[in-house]
């Protein structure tokens, strides 16, 4: 693990600066976390064309609700939770419209079209498997496998216990193994 660089303000420091009126601190937080949040939302099944708007709205809601962030989870995990809830609302609004992004790619440009097609097929199978998981299992699995968040923090973000988070993760792994086999 790398030691924090004192020259680079932590997320908590940036949040404090923003609350004190420094708009640049908010901009820095967006630059820091927008792409990981976009990737997370994609993995959770958000349509690719809506990810940018979802990311933007997640930040707006997060900044407007900063008094709700108590610092027991990282700003990033808390932000991801907000984004995940927004994605869920979008899914409800669209009543089950397929949320698995299908990407059109020109395989002729690929160095190894067969390998790329196989990788894309594996990704699609994984995405379909993720979409079929119960909500809690999907959230835990993605926070753990996709974002590398530890069980203690997952428990704080999702309002559960580390032990329960671990169980959800293993249930998700067991179900997903069948999808990619």
């Amino acid at each position, binding site marked *: 693990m790398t030691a924090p660089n004192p020259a680079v303000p932590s997320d908590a420091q940036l949040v404090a600066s923003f609350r004190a009126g420094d708009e640049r601190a908010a901009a820095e937080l967006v630059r820091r976390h927008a792409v990981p949040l*976009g990737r997370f939302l994609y993995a959770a099944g958000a349509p690719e064309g809506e990810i940018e708007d979802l990311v*933007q709205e997640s930040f707006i809601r997060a900044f407007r609700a900063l008094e709700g962030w108590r610092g027991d989870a990282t700003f990033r995990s808390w932000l991801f939770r907000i984004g995940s809830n927004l994605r869920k609302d979008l899914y409800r609004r669209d009543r089950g419209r397929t949320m698995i992004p299908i990407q059109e790619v020109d395989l002729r440009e690929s160095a190894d079209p067969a390998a790329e097609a196989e990788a894309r097929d594996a990704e699609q199978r994984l995405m379909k498997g993720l979409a079929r998981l119960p909500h809690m299992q999907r959230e835990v699995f993605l926070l753990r496998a996709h974002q*590398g968040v530890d069980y203690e923090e997952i428990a704080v973000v999702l309002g559960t216990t580390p032990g329960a988070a671990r169980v959800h993760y293993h249930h998700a792994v067991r179900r997903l193994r069948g999808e990619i086999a």
Partner: protein
Amino acid sequence: MNQCTRLSDRMPAVARGTERWSAAEEAHLGACGDCSSEWVLVGRAAGLGDSVVLDIERVTGGVLSALRLPAPSRAAKVLRWALPVALAASLLLVLVRTRWTRPTGPAAVTYSLLPEAESLSDSELESVLQLIPTAEPNLGGVDSLSEDELTQIVKDLEG
């Protein structure tokens, strides 16, 4: 904690490239079917969304512009869902009162003849009813009425 759990706990960090497998761990991965399939899964999951491209400057600009505007007040947020609910409840109440509780036929005529009774409580109505001489229902008596008498009673009821 057994070897499989230890490896499982380290998989996300190795998949993200912040840690590496030791030789012993690699040997275990090669021999343990559960661990190797989980490792494939975590590796694929870690790469999901790598192709996502965001216009960070656009997102930042959008966020800052929105934050410069006054946030919607709590009252406005509550009104956004409370108003339609209140309207729907009022409509339902009106429907219930007009469609299901309004008496029809002769009872309605009697009811409209005594508008004062509407404001009485149950106990007050009870007292009023006790003052009215009891007219025992006598269906046999109705049968004995002539056509003209029945027509007159109906006319009286209808006002």
